[in-house]
């Protein structure tokens, strides 16, 4: 007798993401019963697309400078850590996202600190230099990862203008950017009218007040929305080649793809599941991405979205992998996949989507991705039903629309001299 009640009620352990009215600023929240932390994503319209061609890395340098801004003599990031939390950022083509996770009891103090840093960022040479050095470490880490290298190559080829610039720039490009550039970028693009926040976990009135304080610290104003556009693919695939200090070659194939808010998104998730599985060897346990022959990187949180198939040379000969991939895509374009195949990968896609974002900040990011594309904040929760509706004809249409044109990036081991 108790169980049906329990089953129904456990669904309410997390409220659906919804817009929260906190005045003029924009806030979207999903509260979880029993959560002991709050995760907040602060989204600012200051991604790489806001850079000029000579400002490669400036979006990241500005974000890192903000985290290094000293409040009463201590860096913001360190103060948040000491209060019982953490903060980090990610740079996308359109936006920069600050991911904050914190003890609820610390949120008032942390939000006050964050607001002070936003209102008066420290763009002195010392702080910008430290930020540049920290970014250099991130760049070095990315350079050691062949998938990241390949994805950045493809993104640069895919998007028009600076939207395709590397997330953190390069060490060389950062060296040419100074305090004036950082100050100018923040002044121009860190504006209240274009910022919003999302939150998950222990979200209550205090959290809403904290978010209001942070968003209220941005200067009034807004800009025209940035234009993100993809370059047209040529009739023949473009091939990009680079070398890195890696052990095996990687081949990455970049396609255009539907974004999260696109009606074809669910069908693309089914195709992602199929491609991830098709070259996967048998294993007793779930393989990590670096152990898979094919690993799909789907950047659906940006519109236009990008879909990258990475072929790992330690698991699968890249030439053979490209051949297999070509054969699959040709088949998918020519005729609908068998119904039982689509049914199988719909089930896999449903599961993978459920597991897509599990930490507080990842879930906050997913809400923000929907909002950023003009969709409802609860868009992610409707994806499972959309997957259920995918048909073999949908997959074929998707293959025709998106998968016939592509760019290939080869990341090869650097030859010993």
């Amino acid at each position: 007798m108790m169980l049906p009640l329990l089953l129904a009620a456990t669904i309410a352990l997390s409220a659906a993401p919804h817009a929260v009215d906190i005045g003029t600023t924009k806030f979207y929240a999903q509260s979880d019963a029993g959560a002991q932390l709050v995760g907040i994503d602060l989204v600012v319209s200051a991604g790489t697309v806001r850079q000029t061609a000579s400002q490669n890395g400036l979006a990241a340098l500005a974000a890192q400078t903000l985290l290094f801004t000293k409040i009463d003599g201590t860096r913001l990031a360190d103060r948040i850590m000491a209060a019982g939390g953490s903060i980090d950022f990610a740079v996308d083509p359109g936006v920069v996202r600050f991911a904050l996770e914190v003890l609820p009891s610390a949120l008032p103090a942390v939000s006050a600190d964050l607001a002070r840093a936003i209102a008066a960022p420290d763009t002195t040479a010392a702080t910008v230099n430290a930020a540049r050095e920290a970014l250099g470490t991130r760049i070095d880490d990315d350079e050691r990862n062949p998938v990241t290298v390949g994805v950045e190559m493809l993104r640069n080829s895919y998007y028009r203008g600076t939207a395709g610039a590397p997330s953190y720039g390069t060490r060389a490009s950062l060296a040419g950017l100074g305090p004036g550039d950082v100050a100018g970028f923040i002044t121009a693009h860190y504006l209240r009218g274009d910022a919003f926040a999302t939150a998950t976990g222990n979200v209550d009135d205090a959290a809403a007040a904290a978010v209001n304080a942070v968003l209220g610290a941005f200067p009034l104003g807004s800009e025209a929305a940035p234009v993100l556009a993809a370059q047209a693919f040529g009739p023949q695939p473009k091939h990009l080649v680079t070398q890195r200090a890696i052990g095996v070659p990687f081949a990455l194939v970049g396609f255009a793809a539907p974004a999260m808010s696109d009606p074809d998104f669910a069908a693309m998730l089914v195709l992602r599941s199929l491609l991830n599985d098709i070259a996967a060897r048998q294993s007793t346990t779930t393989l990590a991405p670096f152990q898979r022959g094919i690993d799909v990187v789907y950047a659906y949180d940006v519109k236009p979205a990008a879909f990258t198939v990475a072929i790992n040379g330690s698991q699968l000969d890249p030439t053979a992998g490209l051949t297999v991939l070509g054969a699959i895509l040709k088949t998918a374009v020519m005729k609908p996949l068998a119904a039982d195949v689509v049914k199988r990968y719909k089930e896999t896609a449903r599961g993978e989507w459920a597991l897509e974002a599990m930490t507080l900040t990842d879930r906050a990011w997913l809400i923000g991705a929907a909002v950023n594309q003009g969709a409802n904040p609860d868009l992610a929760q409707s994806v499972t039903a959309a997957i259920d509706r995918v048909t073999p004809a949908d997959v074929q249409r998707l293959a025709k629309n998106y998968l016939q044109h592509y760019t290939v990036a080869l990341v090869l081991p650097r030859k010993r001299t």
Partner: protein
Amino acid sequence: MHVGAAVRAALLGAALVLSSVGAEGDAGAPLAGTLAGGGTYLIRPGGGAAVAAVALWYRAPAGGFATDAVPGLGRLAANAVAASKPVTGTALSQFVRQVGGRLSVTAYPESIAVSVLVPADRAADAVRALTRSYFAPVLSDAGLALARSNVLEDGLIRGFDNNAAITDALYASLFASGPAKIPPFGSSSAFATVTLDTVRSYAERAFRPANAMLIVTGAVDPSVLRTALPGRDGAQADAETAAPETLAAPAGPVAAPGPERGFGLGWAGPPIAAEREATAFDFIADYLFYPDTGSVQKAVRNSGSSLVGTFVTYHDPGVFLLTSAGGDQAAVHAAVAAALVAIRRPLDAATFAAAQRQFVYHILSDAETPSALADTYGWYAVEGNPGYAPGEGGTAGRYLSAAAGLTPEFVAATAAKYLDRPGAAINIEPAAGSPQ
């Protein structure tokens, strides 16, 4: 709608549910109890992503029950069961792959965990698949061959982690006998002689229902237990007891070759039953060695070294381990030595308060997903103190209460109590021909 109203409504609804199911002994819906085939279960519903973590934890020596241990046998057996087709249905690994979930097998010196993460609406299926596979294990030659290949590959990947090798050497040096002395991974030569019968015997004893702890967390309710299978007839009806661990006699540093210079330090620490002391050691490990934020980690950030410091809350004794490899080892050694002296003295109040907040935050953040929470519950249950699991009881629970109750003086005294005792030390020097 104002956030307060919306959130309060959601939380009120959830709170009503939690109070309903929170009372153990409710007819049909207790959150902890005994499985039909013996063994115990623990269910902890929670908000968040619509996923469920289902895990089986077993107390079982990873090197086997026999006196002549086979390193990695437990890991091999758990993997082989996952890959073998049971009497009915599909192999567990195939089921999880099909539903887009994740399956992992983890082996510790004296415990083995098989964990599954699935969408919430497949939680009951996951409970059925796990109990079907492990409570009446069926092993096939194909399943064992795949398991052998996968486990050896895992060992190969781990071989690139120099800190892991130092950790193994520390355990071997710190203990004279007991499960902790046995290396966690086997070699291809050792596995080559392991027969299907050997693995089956191990699996039938280790994975019997009475020895199981079933942990379910996430967007679930107790009805998922209805799908748990009781197990096979004739299985032993009791659980394994903890095997004694015997510390080695104090000895000097052990020198060993390795691909790059490094060192390891290890001490026996408080047992899991000494909750306040064990929490103090978790605090020490967090304050000094938590990645990126630990005070020693920050001090050696530019050394080019990897440094790992942890306290492992075993049944008895716990173990405090430090390993470092590569880079400027002199700088790391100096920073570690200074920190281990300083931690024996009370931190100033402001530093301690900040470290304490950071520690609590790390504890909560590290266990915020259903799978991490299931791991936490499983670990503390199998080590014999489930009520002390971080997260159990929230901030009023025993672990977080102990964390909140720490003082600078108690932390310093606990550090001195255990770190003043002899420990184990490993010094790694590059082998001839290593690229260093």
